[in-house]
Structure formats: structure tokens, C-alpha cells
């Protein structure tokens, strides 16, 4: 049952992500990113990360994906064709990424991971994540909040200058 669910989510994740990389229509690429994010959320839930699964749906699908689709729509007037490089460049990119993938697979299968002999039952993680964020990881948490504030101000500033120039 677990294997079946894993395979379903792998298919939901990987086939649209090939479309993201290869489609010649950027709107199709943006919408297949939806399925990729959703499949990754499913994989998180399968790994016992309930909080992260929900967060993936909330932040990636309803936040980041909407922003990307906005970006696609607002730059619609720029040439939609030729969103990829010409064939030699694409060939070189494919060779490079296949090489990187081969390196990964060698590393994954040659390493003796200190695996758990028996997988524990998944437990609710939200309260434990809250404890860690306000305990061990308090300083990174605060830095992240400052980062988000800086991003908010910076994005408004960048866009405002270009609007004012017009």
C-alpha cells in the first residue's frame, strides 16, 4: 500500500517536472509546476512530515505558483516563442545534467547510510517543530523573519522605482 502510494506520488511529481523542463510553452510549464509541487507535498506526507506537507501546499501552490503565473502573464507580450536556447546549447545542458545525475547515483548507492533498522511510526510533528523553532533554532528563526521583512521592503522598492520612472 505504501509502495503503491509512493509510486503514484512519484509519477505525479516527475512527469510534470519533465514538462517544466522541456515544454516549449511557458504557460504549460507554469501549470505543470502545480502538479510537481503537489506531488512533493504528497511525498512529504508519506515521509511522516504532515506539517511540511500542508506548508508545501500553502506556500508553494497558493503563494509561489500564483506569483510565477502572475509573472508569466504580465510578461506575456515579450516573445513567447524561443523560450529555450538553440539545439547545441540544449544538448550541452542535457549532457551536463545527466553527468550530475550519474554522480548523484554513484554517491547514493556507494555510501553506507546509517539507516534505521526499523522505521518508527509517524507521529504528529507540529508541536515538536514549534518547540525547536523557539528553542534550539531561535536565532535562525529570528533571522528568517528579518529576511522576510527585508524582502518585503526590497520588492516594494525595486518595483516602485521602475513605476516612478514611467
Amino acid at each position, binding site marked *: 500500500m*505504501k*509502495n503503491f502510494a*509512493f509510486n503514484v506520488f*512519484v509519477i505525479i*511529481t*516527475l512527469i510534470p517536472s519533465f514538462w*517544466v*523542463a522541456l515544454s516549449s510553452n511557458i504557460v504549460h*510549464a507554469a501549470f505543470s*509546476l502545480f502538479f510537481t*509541487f503537489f506531488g*512533493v507535498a504528497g511525498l*512529504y506526507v508519506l*515521509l*511522516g*512530515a504532515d*506539517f*511540511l506537507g500542508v*506548508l508545501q501546499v500553502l*506556500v*508553494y501552490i497558493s*503563494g*509561489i505558483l500564483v506569483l*510565477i503565473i502572475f*509573472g508569466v502573464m504580465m*510578461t506575456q507580450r*515579450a*516573445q513567447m516563442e*524561443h*523560450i*529555450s536556447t538553440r539545439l547545441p*546549447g540544449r544538448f550541452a*545542458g*542535457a549532457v*551536463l*545534467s*545527466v553527468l*550530475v*545525475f550519474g554522480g*548523484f*547515483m554513484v554517491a*547514493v548507492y556507494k555510501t553506507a*547510510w*546509517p*539507516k*534505521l533498522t526499523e*522505521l*518508527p511510526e509517524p507521529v504528529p*510533528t507540529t508541536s515538536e*517543530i514549534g518547540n525547536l523553532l523557539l528553542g534550539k533554532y531561535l536565532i*535562525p528563526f529570528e533571522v*528568517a523573519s528579518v*529576511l522576510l521583512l527585508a*524582502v*518585503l521592503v*526590497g*520588492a516594494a522598492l*525595486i518595483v516602485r*522605482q*521602475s513605476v516612478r520612472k514611467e
Partner: protein
Amino acid sequence: MLAYSLENFLLVSGVLFCLGIFTVLTRRNTVAIIMGIELILNAAGLNFVAFSRFVQTQNHISGHVFTLFIIVISAAEIVIALAIVLSLYSTKKTIHVEDFDELKW
């Protein structure tokens, strides 16, 4: 059929990462490059959670916190990147990366 194991999760995230690399390397459209970066960040987050599930660790939730920070960073990155892209688009009327070469010496 893939089994539910650490190696297969790493395989999936490796495929995601390499597709992200391919997208970043071969797209000319800036928004499509941003999509490739999102694929890469998703692969990294998936790795952290997979390791915290299958590998002996002191605290099996630590990997989740790291993925949480990855999600925060990627949200911040996407907002700034799209602000820059829209700003460039309103001044140059193009979003092809090879047209943005003012800083090239």
C-alpha cells in the same frame, strides 16, 4: 514499481534536481529559469525530510526544520526575482536573459 526506501527517495530528488539544472541552463525566458530554481529547492527539501525519516539522528525533526527554512528562503528569493524581472521588463520590454548584459565587461 519503486519500493518505499531511502535510495528511491534520493533517486526522485536527484531527478528533480537535474531537471532543475537542465531548466536553468537551457531556458532563455527569465521566468522559466526561476521555475528551474524552484525545482532545485524542492529537491533539496525532499532530501532533508527523507534523511530525517530513514537515517539515525539525534532528533528526527531537525530535517523538517531545515526544510521549513528552505521554504522561507525560496519564497523570499522568488519575490525578489520576480520584482527584478518585472522592473527589467518595464524598462527593456524583454525578458530574455541574453538581453540583460549591461554588467558584462
